[in-house]
């Protein structure tokens, strides 16, 4: 019987220099557009799935402002008929002029319903698979996907607005818990990936859009502003989530060190896929960067971020990776470990209330306040 007690924690990569490999796979067999050794950017299309059929409705009654019965009399096509783009689907003859409704795309008439709508079967583009990170293609799975390898400083966040951009990393704050004002967004930040510290107001989000930044990185955003962030064309990455008060020290330290360097932001997020994380890559020309391997058990000395109040957002080091069963303030019992915070205090932390910052080296941000 295996009695050795270990726990494999959730982890995010926060590393000043790491080699990261990612598989990018199509859902159905398709076509690859890259070759081994090719350098790709996050937005580059690496593969495409097969074309698929879809439905397109053409509402004749609505377009001609007619009642359904009258609209049906104007329709020129029949179910089963193939039509070409710009071919007339319906024609309305008036006393002085004639109106035609043209097929918006080529397709096949599937049905014509009683409401005067033509149902077209059309072909649409299949899945478009983008690189999602900057790096080199190191392996191909024919017709199915690729493996991309990146080397650089790499930081994973908690939430992203789905956008990807490249730009010069620019810190507008000197400490991880500072905040910025809308006035700081002038022409000098155009095209930059801007680090704004603790959080951003709606005004800052709008000012960033006006200044045409390529990205914003901050600790957290109030829940009601997530939707505003989702609407922006630039990338938004939250390093802590919705309740953090400062960018975690190891993350801020990496961002500060690379102020002025080119960064690639891929602000991926899906609530149903907690391990799909937004990331920030600062590419480095390094030959011997260590390869990130997920799934290592928790060890003493690991840098971890705590995920539950009252220690939410704190970063500390694991002192004892197996502290057994503990009772929390809420009365809930959980297995956990012992974590030491930068102030020297020791805390029992349930295993599922922490994540390892894999690759993190420091607990405190230089020049910044303790987090």
């Amino acid at each position, binding site marked *: 019987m295996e009695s050795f007690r270990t726990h494999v924690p959730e982890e995010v990569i926060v590393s000043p220099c790491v080699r990261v490999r990612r598989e990018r796979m199509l859902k159905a067999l398709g076509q690859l557009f890259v070759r081994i050794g090719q350098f790709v950017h996050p937005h580059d299309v690496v593969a495409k799935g097969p074309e698929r059929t879809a439905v397109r409705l053409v509402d004749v009654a609505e377009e001609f402002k007619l009642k359904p019965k009258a609209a049906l009399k104007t329709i020129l096509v029949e179910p089963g008929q193939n039509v070409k783009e710009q071919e007339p689907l319906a024609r309305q003859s008036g006393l002085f002029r004639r109106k035609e409704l043209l097929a918006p795309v080529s397709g096949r008439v599937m049905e014509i319903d*009683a*409401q005067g709508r033509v149902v077209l079967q059309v072909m649409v583009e299949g899945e478009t698979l983008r690189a999602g990170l900057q790096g080199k293609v190191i392996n191909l799975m024919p017709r199915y996907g690729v493996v991309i390898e990146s080397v650089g400083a790499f930081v994973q966040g908690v939430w992203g607005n789905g956008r990807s951009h490249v730009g010069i990393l620019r810190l507008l704050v000197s400490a991880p818990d500072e905040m910025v004002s809308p006035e700081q967004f002038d022409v000098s930040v155009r095209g930059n990936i801007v680090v704004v510290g603790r959080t951003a107001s709606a005004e800052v989000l709008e000012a960033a859009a006006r200044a045409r930044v390529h990205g914003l990185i901050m600790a957290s955003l109030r829940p009601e502003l997530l939707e505003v962030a989702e609407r922006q064309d630039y990338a938004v990455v939250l390093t802590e989530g919705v309740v953090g008060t400062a960018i975690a020290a190891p993350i801020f330290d990496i961002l500060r060190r690379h102020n002025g360097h080119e960064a690639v932001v891929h602000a991926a997020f899906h609530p149903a896929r907690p391990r799909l994380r937004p990331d920030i890559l600062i590419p480095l020309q390094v030959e011997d960067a260590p390869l990130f391997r997920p799934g290592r058990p928790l060890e003493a000395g690991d840098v971890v971020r705590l995920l539950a*109040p009252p220690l939410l957002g704190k970063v500390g080091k694991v002192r004892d990776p197996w502290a057994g069963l503990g009772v929390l303030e809420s009365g809930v019992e959980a297995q956990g470990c012992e974590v030491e915070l930068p102030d020297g205090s020791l805390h029992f932390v349930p295993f599922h209330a922490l994540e390892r910052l894999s690759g993190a080296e420091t607990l405190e941000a230089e020049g910044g306040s303790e987090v």
Partner: protein
Amino acid sequence: MFGDEFVEGAESFLYADIGTAWTRAVLVDQVEGRYQFVARGEARTTLEYPTANIVAGVQEAVREVERASSRALLITDSEGDSRVLLPEDEDGDGVDAFLVTTSAFRPLKLVVFSTELPPAARAALSVLHALYTEIVGTFTVPDRENGRWGEHSVADLFQTVDRERPDIMLFVAFGETEPTPGVEHFLHVLQALNNLYDVRQRPTVVIVAQNTLVSHMVAQIETMNPVERVVVAGEEDAGDVRHPLAEVMEKLLHERRLARMPGFGALQAWSETPVQPTAVAQARTIGLLAGQLRRRLVFVDVGGEHSHLVMADAGLVSSIVRPGLGIGFRLQELLERVGPEAIFRWVPGLLPERELAGLLVHRSWYPLVPPATRDALWLEQAAGRAVLQELVAEPFRHLPESFSGANGHLTCDYIIGAGGVIQGAPEPGQALLLLLDALQPTGIVHMMRDRLGLVPALGVLSQTEPEAVADLLAQHVLESLGTVVVVSGPIQSGKEVLQFRMIHPDGATYTVTVEGGRLYREYLEPGLRLELELRPARKVDVGLGPGQPVRIQVPGGTVGLVIDARGRPLPWPDSLAEQRRQVQEWLFDVGG
């Protein structure tokens, strides 16, 4: 189809349930000839990167059981793969049987096509709700000149199928014996709809109709789509379709979801018993219990991504799974749907709403994080109440007659709660109040919770090892929370609504006067029973009619006896702050 192949005569078994968030394992063994709970363990479900294989989560949960029981349950082969050691060996390692249930899959998407259906047929189709299905469209097969598919047009049908890509097209016609123009039109449209799918991924067509019509349709369809058939005798026998339709749907759920879970094949190879959907096994247990006890049972399970309601009495088992409703990553959607007040009113304390909203969203992104503080715990339990209220809102509007009490509120004999938020509530009073607040029953009801998560296992076991089920129930695998007497009718706050007298086995009596608007709790240990005399005020009802007194024996529980004189529906002060203060008092009253 599920659960027919359990190893008969098994003396020990290991049970694993794979949920969307957690995989839990429980060891049960015979001690002195009786089945007893031994140990349990849990681990993250490992459907996602980097593992992407359910087996890893099961192995980890089983390792937890090994540590807790000091018994080897896994064996590792020469290639380093671990599997459950079957059967139990001479040293007492391993187990005789390994049972698995799961709910860690997406629901089956279904479009229903039907002719005009008699009420019995519509009722029979309710069996679909028990099987993790999401009905994405309902269309009436056109049989008139206007070409409308019920409330929809054919264009709506094409749009629905294009958007949702359903797994199943269910065609139901009870009265027709021959193909009508409407049926022919359905077949024609089906051909066109198939063009929207890759040939290998076309939907299965399930035909529920009379024999001649089924034969005609199958001949037309079987070259295009996978087909399943359920033959009915006629409109008058519509109710008979429940069982065969359930069997077909279970088979499709297995083929299209369970069998496609990564690692399913390996896991299934360990066990002689088919892996079963959790809700199917839960409903079987509750139906069995209702039959044995001859009582009305309500069971609710708040899951991470699905929630489940079962109502059962001696003649009825109604099971409804609500896919997409849970306290996992969809909490943010729930908050948007029901509004903050519907959740935050249940959170006592002074934490500002803005912070509560932040913590709720944070929890939806990190659903595995246990609530460490009291505020976090209250918030989780508030979310549990909101999920339960959503779950029962529609079914409780049309309660079966035997479950319909005063003013149409729920009445039943037992309420059993399951799911992490109920199982894991550190104080039993919290679990009891959560169930009471969300379901708001009337009359006299006994409350329990499935603390060990064994209700699905009992459903699997029940078909071949009924004595194991009886043993486990006898040793309280379900935690008895206590008995609740709900006072309903014209209740005024502060006015006397009830007098109750507790008569202890030693003859000691104790009388209490109950004021409207309050919750009362009396300690009554699990395993004890006492006689209770209830004398409601005029027009006030404790389940037997307005003003009717009653003398009953009530069992105790970890909470004891609770008198709920708050009224139905629950009265709320105007402001959210007062509502939260009110909830604080209620929690205090029941020892939460």
